[in-house]
C-alpha cells in the first residue's frame, strides 16, 4: 500500500539528472575510453610491426645464414648464436655484480638502517637508478675498461664485453636493490618480533625469517634485473665494441655483440649492408626475439610478485 502511494512521485528516470549533464558525462567517459584504447593500440602496433617485418626476414633469408661463424650483416651472415651468446655473457657478468650488491644493500636498508638513515639513503639509490644508460656506457669505456678490464685481461683493446657487463651491472644494481628492499620492507614486523622472541639474533632473523618470507619479491627483483640487462642497449653499444659485426666469442676480454647492440649498429649505418636488403628486416627479427624474451621474463616476475602479495 505504501509502495503504491510513493511510486507515481519518483521514478528511476527522475534520478538520472538533466540530459545535458548526462551527455557531458558520456562525452567525458568516451574521451577517457579513447585514451585507454590508444595506449592499447600502441602495444598492438608494436607487435604487428615486429611480426610483419620479422616474417619478411625469415621468409626471404637463406636459413643457413642464421648459423655461421658470426653476426656479420654486411656479408649477409646472421649467426644468431653470436649475438645471443654476447647477450648471455654480458647479462651474466652484470648479474654477478648486481645480485650481491643489490641484495646486500636491500637487506641493509630494510633490516639494519635506522629510519633516519633509510630516509636519507633510499633517495640516493633512486638517484643512482635515474642515471641514463648512455652515461654509464661512457663510464664503462672511459673508466672501467682502462682501470679494471685491461689490466685484468692484459689486452690493448679498449672495447670488451667485460667492461660492458660491469657497466650494465652498475646500471641494474639500484633496480634490484629497490625492488628487493620493497619486498623485505613489506614483511610484517610480527614475524621479526616472533623471531627475536625465540632468542634469534638480527642476522638469523634477516637470513632465516625475512628473506624466506620475501623470497618471491626478491626473485621478482632478480628476474627484472635480468630482463633489464638483456634489453640494455647503450652501455653495450658504447663499451662492447664490435661495431662492424662480430665473430662468435664468449670471452669477456674480447669485443662482442649483443642483440641490442646489433640493432643500433645496423640502424646507425655502420653495419648497413648497401646491396643487401635484409639488413633492415633483420633489425625487426632481432627486436621480436628481444621482445619475446623480456616479455616472458616480465610475466614470470609479475607472477612472483603476485604470489608475494597473496601471502600477506
Amino acid at each position, binding site marked *: 500500500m505504501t509502495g503504491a502511494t510513493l511510486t507515481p512521485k519518483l521514478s528511476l528516470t527522475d534520478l538520472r539528472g538533466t540530459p545535458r549533464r548526462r551527455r*557531458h558525462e558520456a562525452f567525458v567517459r568516451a574521451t577517457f575510453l579513447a585514451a585507454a584504447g590508444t595506449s*592499447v593500440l*600502441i602495444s598492438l602496433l608494436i607487435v604487428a610491426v615486429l611480426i610483419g617485418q620479422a616474417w619478411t626476414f625469415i621468409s626471404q633469408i637463406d636459413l643457413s645464414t642464421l648459423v655461421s661463424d658470426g653476426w656479420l650483416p654486411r656479408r649477409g651472415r646472421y649467426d644468431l648464436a653470436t649475438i645471443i651468446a654476447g647477450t648471455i655473457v654480458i647479462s651474466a657478468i652484470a648479474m654477478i655484480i648486481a645480485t650481491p650488491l643489490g641484495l646486500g644493500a636491500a637487506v641493509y636498508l630494510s633490516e639494519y638502517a635506522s629510519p633516519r638513515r633509510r630516509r636519507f639513503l633510499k633517495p640516493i639509490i633512486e638517484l643512482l637508478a635515474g*642515471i641514463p644508460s648512455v652515461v654509464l*656506457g*661512457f*663510464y664503462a669505456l672511459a673508466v672501467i675498461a682502462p682501470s679494471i678490464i685491461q689490466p685484468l685481461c692484459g689486452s690493448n683493446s679498449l672495447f670488451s664485453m667485460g667492461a660492458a657487463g660491469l657497466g650494465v651491472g652498475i646500471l641494474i644494481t639500484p633496480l634490484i636493490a629497490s625492488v628487493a628492499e620493497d619486498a623485505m620492507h613489506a614483511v610484517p614486523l610480527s614475524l621479526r618480533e616472533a623471531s627475536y622472541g625465540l632468542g634469534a639474533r638480527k642476522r638469523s632473523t634477516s637470513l632465516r625469517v625475512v628473506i624466506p618470507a620475501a623470497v618471491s619479491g626478491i626473485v621478482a627483483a632478480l628476474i*627484472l634485473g635480468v630482463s633489464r640487462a638483456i634489453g640494455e642497449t647503450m652501455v653495450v653499444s658504447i663499451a662492447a665494441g664490435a661495431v662492424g659485426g662480430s665473430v662468435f666469442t664468449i670471452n669477456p676480454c674480447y669485443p662482442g655483440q649483443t642483440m641490442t647492440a646489433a640493432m643500433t649498429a645496423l640502424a646507425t649505418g655502420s653495419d648497413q649492408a648497401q646491396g643487401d636488403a635484409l639488413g633492415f628486416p633483420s633489425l625487426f627479427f632481432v627486436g621480436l626475439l628481444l621482445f619475446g624474451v*623480456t616479455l616472458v621474463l616480465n610475466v614470470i616476475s609479475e607472477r612472483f610478485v603476485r604470489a608475494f602479495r597473496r601471502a600477506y
Partner: protein
Amino acid sequence: MAGHSASLASASAQEAVRRALTGQRINLGQVWFQALLLGCLVVALGILVSLLADVIQLGGGMLVERGVDFLTSNTSSNPAIAGVGQGIFGSLLIIFFVVTVAFPIGIGAAIYLEEYARDTRLTRLLNAAIRNLAGVPAIVYGLLGLGIFVLALSWFTGGRSVVAGGLTMAALVMPIVVITTAEALRAVPQSIREAGFGVGATKWEVIRHHVLPYAAPGIFTGSILTISRAFGETAPLVLAGGVLGGFAAPPGKGIVETLQGPYTALPLIIFNWAREPSDAFRQLSAAAIIVLLLIILLLNGAAILLRNRFERAW
C-alpha cells in the same frame, strides 16, 4: 653462613644467566655480516661518487672554460668549436611531444582504467598489457618508431624527423605515465568518492573536483620523473632517425620545416662523442654528460622533494 654462600652461588648463577642472555660477548659473525651489508651499499654509492668525480674531472674544466658557448654551439667535427646547442634544442622538442601527447593520453587512460572501467577480465588484461609494455626494452620502441613514424607515416612526420623521434618517445613513456597516474589515483581513499556521490555529484564531477586534486601531487611527481627519463633515453632515438653526426640547419626555416627536419638530442650527442677515440672528444663527451646529469638530477631532486612535501597518510 651456609645461607650466605648459597645466595652468593645463586647470585653468580644469575649473573651468568644474565650475561648469556644479553650476549655481552661481541659476536664477530654479527659484526661481519652487518659490515658486509653496509659494504654493498657503500660500493654502490661509491660508484656513483666515482662516476661523478671522473666525469667532472674530465669535462668540468672544458665546460667552465667554454661556458655558454658550449651550450649554444652546433655539433661539429672540430672539437674546439663543437657544442650541444642542437642537442638541447632537440631534447626540448622531444619533451614537448612527451608532454603534449603522452601525458594527456596516459593520464586519460589511467583515469578510465581506475575510475570508470569495471573489474572485468578485459580490464585486468588491459592493465597487465600496460604493465608489460612498461617493461619492454626501450630499443624495441625505437623499432616501432622506425617502422611506423619514420617509414609508414613519413608523409606526416617527414621521415627521420624530430616529430618521429618525439612520437616514439611519447609511445615509450606512455605506459609509465599510465602506471604512475593509476598509483596516485588508487591512493585516494574510496570514502572521498563516496562522499561526493552521496551529495549527488556525477562521476566526472567527483573525479574533477575531489579525486584529481588529491592525486595531483602524485601525478605531478610521476610526470617529472617521466620527463627526466625521456631526457636520458637514447636507444629509441638512435633507431628513430636521430642524427649522430653533425648537421647544418639551413637558415630561415619555418616551424613545419624544423619539425620535419633532421634532429639530434643531448644523449645522442654523448653517444656519438663517447665512441670517438680522441681525448678532445672524450672531454666534450664528459662535459655534455655534466649538462645532462645536471638536468636529470635537478628534475629527480625536485620530484623527490615534492613527494616528501606532499606525502599524505590517510
